[in-house]
């Protein structure tokens, strides 16, 4: 195991003093396994949870991971958002943008009723992504409307991450 040594000169007794760099290095050098283990676990779990800082979204992301989703990607969510989809139950191609728009920080408009839909982005509409039941309901309904099927756990996670980060 490498330790970074810095020769900082000599002490009063004229002997060379070794100075360790950084806490982690110190721990490694001291072989303080419990602390090292703790630090490793924390960083791993943080990565696994894809912390968005929004507990409602985080809870859903955890659930999707337990259903087989892997790393979530907001970019993929954005791509899915703009995708134009044709399916058997739709007379014309469908896309999330048709009601919610490309820029979800703006209001949208229901394609059929013309009802105004408040912005989907929490950045401009803070009440979004705060109620789990509401998220579940609309993801189910709207994936079915747009894609002709329910979204997979991966897709749902990607979408939520994308929405959260707009």
């Amino acid at each position, binding site marked *: 195991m490498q330790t970074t040594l810095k020769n900082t000169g000599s002490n009063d007794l004229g002997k060379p003093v070794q100075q360790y760099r950084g806490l982690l290095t110190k721990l490694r050098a001291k072989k303080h396994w419990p602390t090292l283990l703790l630090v490793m676990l924390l960083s791993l779990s943080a990565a696994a949870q894809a912390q968005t800082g929004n507990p409602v979204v985080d809870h859903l992301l955890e659930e999707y991971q337990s259903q087989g989703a892997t790393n979530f990607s907001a970019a993929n969510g954005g791509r899915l958002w703009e995708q134009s989809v044709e399916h058997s139950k739709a007379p014309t191609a469908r896309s999330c943008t048709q009601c919610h728009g490309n820029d979800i920080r703006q209001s949208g408009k229901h394609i059929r*009723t*013309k009802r105004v839909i408040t912005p989907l982005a929490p950045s401009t509409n803070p009440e979004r992504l705060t109620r789990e039941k509401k998220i579940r309901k609309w993801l189910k309904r709207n994936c079915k409307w747009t894609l002709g099927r329910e979204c997979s756990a991966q897709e749902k996670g990607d979408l939520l991450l994308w929405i959260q980060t707009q």
Partner: protein
Amino acid sequence: MTRDTTMTKIMNKLRWPLGGALLTGALFIGLSGFAQQAQSSWWGDDHEDEYYAKNTGNPTHLEECGACHIAYPAQLLPKAAWQEILSNLDNHFGEDASIDTGIRSELTNFLTNNASDSNNAGKFRKFTRGIDIRNPPIQITELKYFERKHDEINDQKMVINNPDVGSFSQCQACHEKAEQGIFDEDTVNIPNFGRWDD
């Protein structure tokens, strides 16, 4: 000197009492009219004589039924129509609007309790005219009374081809207070055409 006739004698005696009684009656009618106007109608304070839906603002109704279109006031359709709509939400005029069973019961109760054939209908009871109450239309715009109330509207110009309206299903486009359940003519303002001045 001529003698008074019998009639004259009677009238002489009656003149003041009769005059007083007639005047009092007239004053009473006039003042009670003012009193009625000032506080409420004889039939109560609840706008029974206006298209003013009661019990609006139910949060579940607004949340579940007001997301895609205006949460249509319960008073617009009879109980049987609401029941039919709520049992077929997976195919709601071509869309999937399915909801939890619990919410569905709650909505059914609210809507049937305030339906056009309920005790809370008020003036909206007129919306039950001309339909089979046990097998009614489920689309508000197909009600006979609805058609009658809108028969002076130029459908094409004012609604269908009016970019700010689009359809008769968008009550709130012209009825400024529709979301509060108020539909009286003095609250009607048709975009691009103006207020409804009859």
